[in-house]
């Protein structure tokens, strides 16, 4: 007698496209649109800016927003809109590179620790504890004091500072995946460690990590802005959003728009990245969503 396999019709959940599920809340849609607008505006800065960001016009200093100067002008009469467009290249460039560094380093760190276990795990994770035992901004100040502030050093410093938190999450993800049946099966089938780690575990832990990357980027924007605001960002005449915010704040009694626009844009950038990160987490990884 051969058992005839009874076909069981499992209810297959309707899989809508990822993008549509992602944007199914109004907040996430708004965030995605804003992200595209901001990134496009910053990337196409030379095409959009009608006035060069360093064109000085002292007779129109602290001009309020107008058709000629959408965001008004600064203390030297420079067009704030142009300066914001070009400043975004520093802010988003540094934050983007820092995010890549934090993710690469953090994931490698967490994966090695979680997969190796034993003393190596212990040492690596205790080092995470040490770095996370001190507020990020303190280590940031020390490192900027030592390395100086350029686009290159700031990206590395911020990336380094954000990697331990990522390592913790990556390690937790690896440990969770290692428990699963498919991993056990892969180990039993003799899949080599490296392939198990990067061929099997990484794709499965991917969703958690992608969502994490968006949240890291939000933190990176904020840290860059904080450092610039303290006067420890990239050196003049280059100016990131944080630098513009600082200069606007210094002239707060002369012009409110000068401080308002950089502040607003920094807030929007952080909000967008946080919102998309939370949403990505909810969609890609429903089990672990907050």
């Amino acid at each position, binding site marked *: 007698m051969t058992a005839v396999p009874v076909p069981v019709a499992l209810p297959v959940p309707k899989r809508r496209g990822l993008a549509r599920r992602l944007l199914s809340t109004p907040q996430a849609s708004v965030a995605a649109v804003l992200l595209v607008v901001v990134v496009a505006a910053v990337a196409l800065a030379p095409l959009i800016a009608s006035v060069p960001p360093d064109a000085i016009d002292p007779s129109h200093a602290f001009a309020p927003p107008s058709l000629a100067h959408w965001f008004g002008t600064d203390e030297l009469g420079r067009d704030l809109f142009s300066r914001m467009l070009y400043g975004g290249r520093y802010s988003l460039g540094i934050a983007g590179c820092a995010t890549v560094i934090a993710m690469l380093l953090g994931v490698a760190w967490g994966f090695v620790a979680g997969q190796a276990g034993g003393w190596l795990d212990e040492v690596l994770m205790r080092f995470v504890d040490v770095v996370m*035992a001190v507020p990020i901004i303190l280590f940031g100040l020390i*490192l900027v004091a030592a390395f100086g502030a350029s686009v290159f050093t700031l990206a590395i410093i911020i990336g380094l500072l954000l990697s331990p938190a990522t390592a913790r999450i990556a390690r937790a993800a690896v440990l969770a995946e290692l428990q699963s049946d498919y991993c056990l099966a892969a180990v039993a089938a003799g899949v080599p460690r490296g392939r198990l780690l990067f061929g099997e575990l990484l794709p499965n832990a991917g969703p958690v990590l992608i969502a994490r990357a968006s949240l890291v980027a939000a933190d990176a924007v*904020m840290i860059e802005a904080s450092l610039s605001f303290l006067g420890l960002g990239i050196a003049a005449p280059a100016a990131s959003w944080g630098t513009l915010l600082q200069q606007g704040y210094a002239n707060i009694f002369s012009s409110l728009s000068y401080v308002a626009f950089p502040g607003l844009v920094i807030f929007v950038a952080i909000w967008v990245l946080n919102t998309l990160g939370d949403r990505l987490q909810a969609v890609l990884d429903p089990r672990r969503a907050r």
Partner: protein
Amino acid sequence: MINFILRRLGISVLLLAIVSVIVFVVLRVLPGDPTITLLGGAQGTDPAQVAQVRHQLGLDRSLPAQYWQWVDGLLHGHLGISYFSQTSVNSLVAQRIGPTLELALVAIVAAVLIAVPLAVLAALRPGGPADRVVAFFTTVTMAVPPFLVAIILVVLFAVRLRLLPSRGYVPFATDPGGNVQMLILPALTLALAAAAPILRFLRASLADVAESGYLLTAEGKGLPWGRALVTHALPNALLPTLTVVGMTIGQLLGGVVVIEYIFGWPGLGSLIVNSVLKRDYAVLQTSVLFAAGAFLLCALAVDVLYGVIDPRLRVRRKVASS
């Protein structure tokens, strides 16, 4: 319990020691010699003069010797001498620690005073208008970085309404009224930033407790829901919130650095920023270590307090460690 405290204390001391090594190494090994800055930054400075200054500051000794000199001094209460003002770091830190403590304490108390009533208000009618307003307030304040909150408050209260000064500090002893006036904005900034996570956690914690049987009993025997919430649910919900408060104090210490700088508040935070700008490593390394120590102390205090308040935790730890 004693064992637990001692072990946590040991870990904290070890962490602090490692932090001190990292801070020291980062500041010494990397480029940026303070002597050049000290002598005016000119390239053609007389080498003999440089050597003399380096010797005075002890920079010509080996790194381990310098590190030992620093730590030995710390342990004996000599925090070092500022490279620039030639004053001892002891007096600098002593001057600065008062304002920072005042700011941080007022901020955390204010944060709790903001968070607890709002959480209870929100929990009274889950999903009601108050709950939604509070939830909105939490998400917004969590997304706005503290320095933006500071700027908004300054624009509102200093530039527009001209009610409060935008920056400055006078000691409480000389001018209590002025001190409080200048304290309001920085303390409120930090309090708002700190209140959001506390509020969010306490609200969730209240919702958890609200579902428990004893609260149903309380309601069943006729206790008004509001009183049941405050007298029965709140004490239990506050317990796990304590950890969040502790973590928030830690984050507050990071926020203090930026906020003090914005408001010209002469605390430890602005001392750190200024010593970074001047490359005054002697002041920098010690003040950062101070801040890190304070941070670790908060974490330790919360852990210990938690164990004292909640006996279940001690038992669980004992079971786990045996």
